[in-house]
C-alpha cells in the first residue's frame, strides 16, 4: 500500500530529525496543523477511553475510502494523531485493516510512544480505530 505524498513527506521529515527535541518540535508543528474538531463532534461517543488526556476520534466513509478526524487537548498527542491520520485517511475501506500502524510509528522513529506502559493514549486510539473499522 503506497504512501500518500503527505505521508511520504512526514516520513522523510521525521527520519531526518536529530534527537528528541527536534522530534518534539515537529510533533507540535504537526499537531498545530490538525484540523480542529467542532464542539459538536466532541461528544462522549467520540471520546476514546483509556487515555489520560482527552482524545476524540470520528470515522466516516467517503467514496469507498476512510476519513477520520481526531483531536486532543494535549499538544504532542495531537501531533501523533496528525501523523496517524495522514497515514490512514484516504485508505480504501477494505485495506485499512491490513495496515501495520505500529510499524508506521516505528518508521517515524516514534515506536516508543506505543509501548504498553504509555498512557498517552495512542494505543487506545489505535484500538478504537480498529473497533470502528471492524464495525463498518
Amino acid at each position: 500500500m503506497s504512501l500518500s505524498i503527505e505521508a511520504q513527506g512526514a516520513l522523510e521529515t521525521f527520519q531526518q530529525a536529530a534527537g528528541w527535541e527536534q522530534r518534539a518540535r515537529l510533533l507540535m508543528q504537526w499537531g498545530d496543523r490538525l484540523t480542529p474538531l467542532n464542539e459538536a463532534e466532541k461528544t462522549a461517543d467520540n471520546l476514546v477511553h483509556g487515555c489520560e488526556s482527552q482524545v476524540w476520534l470520528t470515522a466516516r466513509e467517503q467514496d469507498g475510502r476512510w476519513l477520520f478526524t481526531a483531536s486532543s487537548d494535549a499538544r504532542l498527542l495531537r501531533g501523533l494523531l496528525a501523523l496517524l491520520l495522514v497515514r490512514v485517511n484516504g485508505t480504501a475501506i477494505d485495506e485499512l485493516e491490513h495496515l501495520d500502524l505500529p510499524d508506521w510509528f516505528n518508521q517515524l522513529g516514534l515506536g516508543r510512544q506505543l509501548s504498553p506502559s504509555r498512557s498517552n493514549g495512542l494505543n487506545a486510539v489505535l484500538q478504537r480505530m480498529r473497533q470502528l473499522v471492524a464495525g463498518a
Partner: protein
Amino acid sequence: MFQPSPWRADFPAIAALQRQHQTYLDSAATTQKPQALLDALTHYYSHGAANVHRAQHLPGALATQAFENSRGKVAYWLNAASPDQIVFTHGATSALNLLAYGLQARFNAGDEIVISALEHHANLLPWQQLALRQGLKLVVLPLDQHGLIDLDAAHQLISPRTRLLAVSQLSNVLGAWQPLQPLITLAKAQGALTVVDGAQGVVHGRHDVQQLGCDFYVFSSHKLYGPDGLGVLYGRSEALALLDHWQFGGEMVQVADYQSATFRPAPLGFEAGTPPIASVIGLGATLDYLGSLDQNAIASHEATLHGHLLRGLNDREGAQVLGRPELALVSFTVEGVHNADLAHLLTEQGIAVRAGHHCAMPLMKSLGLAGAIRVSLGLYNDSDDLERFFSALDQALELLR
C-alpha cells in the same frame, strides 16, 4: 550544594538505571531494592525452596522458620504486640479487600463507613463496593484548603451510625501527614472500627501501631524497599477475631470434610494457599537492612531533598503545587501546559516520574484537575537527581511555551 545519599550504593538498580540515563523519581509507585534483599532471595532460591507450614522435611522446616522470622520482624517494625497480629497478603489492595469482605457480616443496612476525599482507589473501591453490597452509606470526609482531612467536618460526619473509619496516613498525591490521632479518637468514641492505610506512610519513619491505637494497619512491601506481591495486614487481636474467613484453601483450614470444614484463626486462617514465601523472607531482609540504618539521618536526608524539590518548583513560573506537601513527594501542574505534554517530554529526557490521576480519580476531580505530575523520593535519591529533573523540566517548558 551537592547532597549525596549515603545509601545510594546499597541499591544496585540505581546505578543500572543511571547507566541507561534514567533518573528514578517514582518511589511512591514502587521502590528500588537493597542488595540485602537481592541476597536473601538468591540465598533462599539457591539453598532450597520449600513450602511452609506443611512439610516435615528439613528444607520445609528451614523455609517455615525463615518465613515466621519475617513475621516477627514485621511485628517488631510496627511495634505490634505479637507476630500473630501480622497477616501476610498479596498486597495492600488485597489486605483492604480482605477487610471489606471479612467484616461484611458485621454491618447492617444503614450503617455508615467513613473514608476521606483523598483516598486512592485501593482504600476507596473495596469500601464503596461493600457499601453497595450491604446497603451501607459511604461517607466521604472533605479536605481543608491545605489538603488535610477537615477535622471540623469529621466531628459532624463521624456519628453513632459510623461503624468503620478507613483513612490514609499519608496521601500519595498530596504528601501530607493526615490527622490520624484525632480521627481515630473520634471513631473509637462512636465504637467504630478503624483502618489505617499505611501504603505511603510506612515508608517514612517508624510508626507504632499500638500508639496509633487503630484496629487495622495495612501496607505493601514493594513500596517499603521490599519485594512485590506481598502486603501486610496488622490487626489488634480482638479486631482480627471479628473477621470472617474470606479466601479458602490450603493451610488456612483446621479440619476439612467433603461437606464442611473448620478454619484456623489469624494469621494462618487468612493466608489461604501457598503464600509468597520468597517475598516474605525478602521483606524480612529489607527490614533488617532498614533497621540497621540511622533513622534520623534518613529523615533528615529526605527532608532536605524534599525542601530542595519544593523550592525548585516554587521558583518556576506557573508551577502550582498540589496541597502543602510535607515530605516524600510533590505533585504539581504548570499553568497553560498539559500534564501529558510535560510527562511526554520528561520521559524523553530520562526522567522517571508519574503523570496522570495517580489512582485517585475522585480526588483529582475534586481538585478540578485532569491530572498532575508527581515527583517522589526514596532514600537513595540525591540532589543531582533533582538537578537533572529541574533541567529537564526547564527544557520541556521552554519547548512547550
